[in-house]
C-alpha cells in the first residue's frame, strides 16, 4: 500500500549521509521503529514546538528524510486543517511506510499527551476549584498568553513579506474579534481572497507561479 515512490530495481548508489532526494528509501524503516520514534517525541516534547523535536529526530538523528523533503512536507502541513505537529507526523509516516506508517506516527505523537491531559482533566475535576489551584492556574494562563504572542511574532517574522499580508492579518482579527464572524466563514472568505490576491501571474509566454 506504500505510496512512497519506491522504484523497485533502481540501483541506488551507496546511501551516504549526503544522498540526495532518495532519503527514506535507503532501507525500509520498520513500522515499530516509526511508532517508537514518534511515541518518544510525543512523550518528551515538552513546551510545544513538537515540529522542532520531529526535525531533530527524523532528519538529524535517524536520517529518514532530508531537510529539503522535511521543509516541503512542512509547507504542505501548514496549508491543511489539523495541527502542524500531527500533520507532519502523518506526512512523514506516509512518506516512510505508507498509510500504516502515517497511522502509527500519528498515534505515537498524540497518545502520550492525550493521556496526560485526560488525567489532568480528572485531577482538575477533583481539585480545580481550590483557591490556590485557581490562583496558580491564573499564573499559568497569563504565561500561556505570552507564549501564544511569542509564537505569533516568530511565525510572522518568518512569513510576512509585504503590506498585503498585514492587511489579511488585520482583516482576520477584525472579522473574528470585532464583528464576531464565525472562524469558518472568516477562514473560507479570506482564504479565497488571499489565494486570488496571490494568483498565478499570466505572462506573455504563459503561466508561471507567482
Amino acid at each position, binding site marked *: 500500500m506504500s505510496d512512497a515512490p519506491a522504484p523497485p530495481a533502481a540501483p541506488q548508489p551507496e546511501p551516504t549521509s549526503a544522498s540526495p532526494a532518495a532519503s527514506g528509501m535507503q532501507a525500509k524503516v520498520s513500522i515499530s521503529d516509526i511508532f517508537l520514534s514518534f511515541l518518544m517525541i510525543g512523550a518528551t516534547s*515538552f*513546551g510545544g514546538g513538537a515540529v522542532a523535536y520531529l526535525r531533530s529526530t527524523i532528519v538529524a538523528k535517524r536520517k529518514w528524510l532530508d531537510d529539503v523533503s522535511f521543509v516541503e512536507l512542512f509547507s504542505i502541513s501548514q496549508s491543511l486543517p489539523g495541527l502542524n505537529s500531527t500533520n507532519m507526523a502523518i506526512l512523514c509516516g506516509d512518506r516512510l511506510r505508507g498509510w500504516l506508517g502515517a497511522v502509527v506516527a500519528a498515534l505515537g505523537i498524540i497518545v502520550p499527551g492525550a493521556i496526560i491531559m485526560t488525567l489532568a*482533566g480528572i485531577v482538575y475535576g477533583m481539585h480545580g476549584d481550590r483557591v490556590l489551584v485557581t490562583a496558580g492556574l491564573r499564573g*499559568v494562563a497569563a504565561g500561556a498568553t505570552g507564549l501564544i504572542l*511569542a509564537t505569533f511574532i516568530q511565525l510572522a517574522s518568518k512569513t510576512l513579506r509585504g503590506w498585503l499580508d498585514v492587511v489579511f492579518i488585520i482583516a482576520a482579527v477584525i472579522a473574528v474579534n470585532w464583528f464576531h464572524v464565525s*472562524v469558518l466563514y472568516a477562514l473560507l472568505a479570506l*482564504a479565497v481572497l488571499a489565494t486570488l490576491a496571490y494568483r498565478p501571474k499570466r505572462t506573455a509566454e504563459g503561466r508561471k*507561479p507567482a
Partner: protein
Amino acid sequence: MSQIPALARVFLYLSLLTVGGGMAAYPEMETLTVDVHHWLTQAQLVHFYSVGQMAPGPNMNMVAAIGEKVAGIAGALVVVLAFYAPTGVFTLIIGRLWKRLTNWPWRTSIQRGLAPVALGLMLAGAFTFGKSSLRFAQTATSAVEIHWLAVVLAVAVLVLMLRTKLNPALMILGCGVIGVFAFHP
C-alpha cells in the same frame, strides 16, 4: 441526554478550523463549548488550554480534558478521535495529491495566501484568549478587570521566548508558582 454525539460534532468541526495551528479555532471553541453547550466556563477553558501548553505532544491535547470533564474517559476518547482522525485522513489524501501538483501554479498561490490568513486567525485567537486570561475577578466580590501582574507575566514570557532558549513549559510552570502567591484572594 448523552453529550457524546455533540462532543464528536463540535470537535470534528473545530478540527477543520485549525489551519496553521490550534489557536485559530480558539474563538469558535469558546463559543461552542462555553456559550452554546455550557460544558465549562470561560475561565476553565483558559485553564485547560494553558495546562495543555505544558504537556508534551501536540499543544491541543487539552481537548481530551474537555471531553473528560463532559463525559468521562469515553468523552475524552471520542473528542480525541473526532479532533484528529478526520483531518488526519484528509491530510493523508491531500498530502499524496499535493506531491503530484508540484507544477500546478495555484498550489503556490494557495500556500502563499493561506500563510497570512492562518497568522491572522492565530492572532484573533490570542485576543479572545487574552480577554479571559488577563482579566479576572481576584475575589468573589470584586469586579472583572485587567490584572496588571498577569500582563507583566505575559510580557515577561513573551520577551524570554524571543530572547532566550528557555523551555516554554518551564516558564509557564514558573508563572503558575508566582500565581499561587500573587493571585489568591
